[in-house]
């Protein structure tokens, strides 16, 4: 009892920066009068979860997936179908969407993870393309290119979300849950195994890590988180169509990850926020704003290849920021044949 009373302020102090960021994120939005800005914040939240889930594969295990939007799509469609056809409450639809996306992740991972490097990457690309075509053409189930309309808003134990501000708080909670659960995962045995696989797969195998099993688990987890983001998207926008889940979407996620930096839990969020805010900030330039977007990405890759916060294992605790040695991991190595 006594020790916990002494430790508590210490905990607050150690985590003050993170806690104050969360406090600002929670306190400021009600004062934003233009609801459009709140909507932008909600999208940053969705993409933060997606980029974090991609980071599990790219940043922690070193598997390059370039079709991650497929799992986002599965989550969105699963959640819409579960709540509209089966009438499941939102909480169950959310969990179901994650589980179904995770299951598809398993189906893809199980036969293909014996492949490595560029071959696995091609499989993820193909899966994304096939899924898009299925969504586009399976009229009776997905309503094809017309999409699914009037997805019901989330209701949490009877409370139905209506304003954008309420959606904002929901996605804020989901992002926090994602970060906390990933942080927990990455600091335990599981996380160490994933890091070992990324650093040197053969050596990981040689120290007794069952690399195939861990890669499959990481793939399933990444798909699960992407499914959660998809579910939220479906209930927020209330309309889903195959066009929201093209290869392009997968590439945007990769760009966010590359921009923010991978291998830690803060970089992906920063990357998602930056690449959503940049086109918004340059909206006065109209269609020329994408020049800025592309230019920023190119400059980033030239001057800081590992991304804004890449190459370091930032922790949630400020006290540990930067205390770990620099870990610059260059993904190109992965494609070279084993020497």
């Amino acid at each position, binding site marked *: 009892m006594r020790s916990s009373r002494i430790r508590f302020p210490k905990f607050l102090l150690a985590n003050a920066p993170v806690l104050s960021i969360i406090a600002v994120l929670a306190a400021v939005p009600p004062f934003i009068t233009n609801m459009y800005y709140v909507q932008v914040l909600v999208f940053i939240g969705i993409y933060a979860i997606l980029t974090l889930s991609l980071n599990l594969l790219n940043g922690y295990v070193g598997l390059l997936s370039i079709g991650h939007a497929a799992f986002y799509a599965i989550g969105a469609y699963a959640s819409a179908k579960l709540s509209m056809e089966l009438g499941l409450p939102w909480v169950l639809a959310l969990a179901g969407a994650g589980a179904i996306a995770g299951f598809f992740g398993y189906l893809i991972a199980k036969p293909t993870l014996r492949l490595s490097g560029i071959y696995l990457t091609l499989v993820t690309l193909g899966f994304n393309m096939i899924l898009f075509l299925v969504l586009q053409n399976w009229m009776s189930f997905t309503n094809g290119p017309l999409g699914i309309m009037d997805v019901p808003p989330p209701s949490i134990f009877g409370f139905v979300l209506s304003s954008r501000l309420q959606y904002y708080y929901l996605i804020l909670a989901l992002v926090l849950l994602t970060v906390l659960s990933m942080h927990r995962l990455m600091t335990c045995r599981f996380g160490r195994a994933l890091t070992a696989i990324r650093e*040197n797969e053969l*050596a990981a*195998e040689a*120290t007794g890590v069952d690399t195939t099993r861990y890669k499959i688990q990481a793939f399933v987890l990444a798909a699960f988180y992407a499914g959660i983001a998809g579910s939220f998207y479906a209930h927020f926008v209330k309309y889903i169509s195959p066009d929201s889940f093209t290869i392009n979407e997968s590439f945007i996620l990769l760009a966010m990850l590359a921009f923010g930096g991978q291998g830690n839990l803060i970089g992906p969020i920063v990357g998602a926020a930056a690449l959503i805010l940049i086109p918004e900030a340059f909206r006065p330039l109209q269609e020329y704003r994408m020049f800025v977007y592309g230019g920023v990405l190119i400059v980033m890759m030239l001057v800081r290849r590992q991304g804004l916060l890449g190459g370091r294992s930032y922790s949630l605790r400020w006290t540990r920021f930067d205390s770990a040695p620099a870990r610059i991991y260059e993904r190109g190595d992965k494609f070279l044949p084993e020497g």
Partner: protein
Amino acid sequence: MLKLTDVNTFYGPIQALKNVSLTVNPKEIVSLLGGNACGKSTTMKTILGLVRPKHGRVEFFGRRIDRLPSSDIVRAGIAPVLEARRLFPFLTVHENLLMGAYTRNDTEGIRTDVERMYALFPVVKERNRQLASTLSGGEQQMVAMARALMARPKLLIMDEPSMGLSPLYVDKVFEIIQMINREEGVAVLLVEQNANMALSIACRGYVLQTGEIVLHDTAENLKNNPLMQKAYLGVA
């Protein structure tokens, strides 16, 4: 303890090992010698389950292991020190050691073993907060050995421990192999090109040539074998 019987391993259509049979007894140092591309590394990979033999069997303490996944083979008590060391480059030396104990659950035992490794390898202790990739080749070899020992193996397989090291470190590495064998009672299978060095510490040796074992004898006899002297030991 470790027994290979008529092992045949193929890479696609190419046969890399032909009827390789060898044994390692407890607390023994056995060296596996041969020139380039004779199948030394393939033998090691076959034992570790990184490649699968087409025919033949690999047994460890009487249990067949040639169909087990590598992680289970490591759990059974075989720890490899891989060729070119293969550390986790961007983990610290300390973290590398902890990864070596990945298959173990006894936190207390792991902690005392880390201390034991620091005592055994003072260089490793000196560098324990550094990234593994910033160490010299010889230092990395020390870390690789310490990491392998962290799994508390019964058999240590070392692939070319002397490769790319300065003569000073080669001596040191072989000294430590002997010490590990003597003090920890760990059997060692030493896969080496440096026949002179390997035979100076081994009890027995096997000589591989194009995937076949052509000679098998005690280290003493191998050193005096005229064929051996001509082909591998550089005695005129």
